[in-house]
């Protein structure tokens, strides 16, 4: 109680740096009051957020509805995203090895960073590692959220952000040209499953007039490496087929 005690009228205002233990004060009531004032502001902000952001309830779980695009809660997104970088046989890395190593590193940090010094600048390896990990986690989370949003948009028959938007019209209003082209046959067997047999859209966005926006080269590049929910090469089997479809699509100018 030597420091930070009550101020007696007539005595000089206390200066914590003049005291032997500058600035220490008892936990109750002095310090806890400050903590609780911070807590009150925090809690008030939280309650206001809660009141103005009501939580909605989705429709009841339906195990038969496989069209629902699943996504974990946001704080698991970084792990979820990690998996996408370890496809196929490497799945093991994404599911266990990387998260496990991360968890163990975190758990045993005190035994990995044993130097006595505590200042973050004086132990660059630990500091850089943590900064890097934090940014990686934030980036992975953001990437997963963006990709999920694109998938949802694609599944709802809307073009992903940044892609040309072709208005939805009735299939009977669409006149595709050059339907004797080999690209047309390939289109009917693959692309049409999602984009509709007249390119009117379905699970994927409408593309009946895509030639108005993109030329054959741009279409080829896109089909090879699509964004949104579209599968690679649009499920076409060879680059040659992709080229045929792209050439034919480029002629469709609506």
């Amino acid at each position: 109680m030597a420091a930070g005690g009550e101020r007696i009228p007539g005595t000089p205002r206390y200066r914590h740096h003049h005291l032997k233990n500058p600035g220490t004060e008892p936990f109750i009531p002095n310090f806890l009051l400050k903590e609780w004032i911070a807590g009150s502001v925090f809690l008030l902000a939280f309650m206001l957020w809660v009141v103005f952001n009501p939580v909605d309830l989705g429709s009841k779980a339906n195990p038969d509805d496989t069209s629902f695009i699943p996504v974990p809660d946001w704080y698991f997104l970084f792990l979820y995203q990690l998996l996408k970088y370890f496809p196929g046989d490497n799945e093991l890395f994404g599911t266990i090895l990387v998260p496990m190593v991360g968890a163990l590193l975190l758990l045993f940090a005190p035994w990995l960073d044993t130097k006595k010094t505590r200042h973050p600048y004086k132990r660059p390896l630990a500091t850089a590692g943590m900064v890097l990990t934090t940014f990686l986690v934030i980036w992975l989370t953001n990437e997963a959220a963006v990709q999920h949003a694109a998938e949802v948009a694609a599944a709802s028959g809307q073009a992903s952000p940044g892609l040309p938007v072709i208005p939805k019209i009735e299939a009977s209003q669409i006149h595709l040209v050059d339907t004797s082209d080999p690209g047309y046959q390939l289109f009917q067997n693959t692309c049409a499953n999602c984009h509709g047999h007249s390119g009117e859209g379905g699970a994927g966005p409408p593309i009946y007039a895509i030639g108005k926006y993109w030329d054959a080269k741009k279409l080829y590049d896109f089909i090879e490496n699509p964004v949104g929910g579209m599968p690679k090469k649009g499920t076409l089997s060879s680059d040659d087929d992709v080229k045929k479809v792209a050439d034919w699509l480029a002629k469709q100018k609506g």
Partner: protein
Amino acid sequence: MLKKAYDWIDERLNVTPLWRDVADHEVPAHVNPAIKMSAFVYCFGGLTFLVITTQILSGMFLAMYYTPDITNAWYSVRYITDEVLLGNVVRGMHFWGASLVIIMMFLHMLRVFFTGAYKKPREMNWVVGVLIFFVVLGFGFTGYLLPWDQKAYWATAVGAQLAGSIPWIGPYIQTLLLGSHTVGALTLTRFFAIHVFFLPAALLVLLALHFIMIRAQHIAGPL
């Protein structure tokens, strides 16, 4: 009157030294935001505890209306959301609080890490803290299923598939996690039990250890 009751208890149990130790210990200046504003980073741990407390309370009050059963769970949550007075606020507190716990705990962990507070002699408290983090993630995973809506169901289905992709033991882990071979009635009861009985028990023990160790070892000194 109150003092008399206190003295009566104190005479028998000698509680004064216990709480005086907590009440009177001197808090150093470098963690006091009233002296140095930048010391607010030392509040993250306390704020995490504050949110955890509201989570426990809002969870208790939600449990008065919730039913962990696949035919009723969704309807009971809808009843809480649409029918019960301020039920949507209590649910909102639990929903948003879950995210807030994670955020505050992550910030608290970064503070401890960057100030090197986990170094000798506080290694054990760091380990306990990391375990608390894992327990809280467990709360998040199990709690997400409970409203039994489409998001909940499919997120759990994906999570279970991931567990199932672990070589050799994966399928067994998946079955044990789900209590069944698919996400269903047994999964919901299992997740409910984990969420409201097992994990809170673990959390309270770990939190007690966390706080006792802070008290025993004091806050790490200034950098």
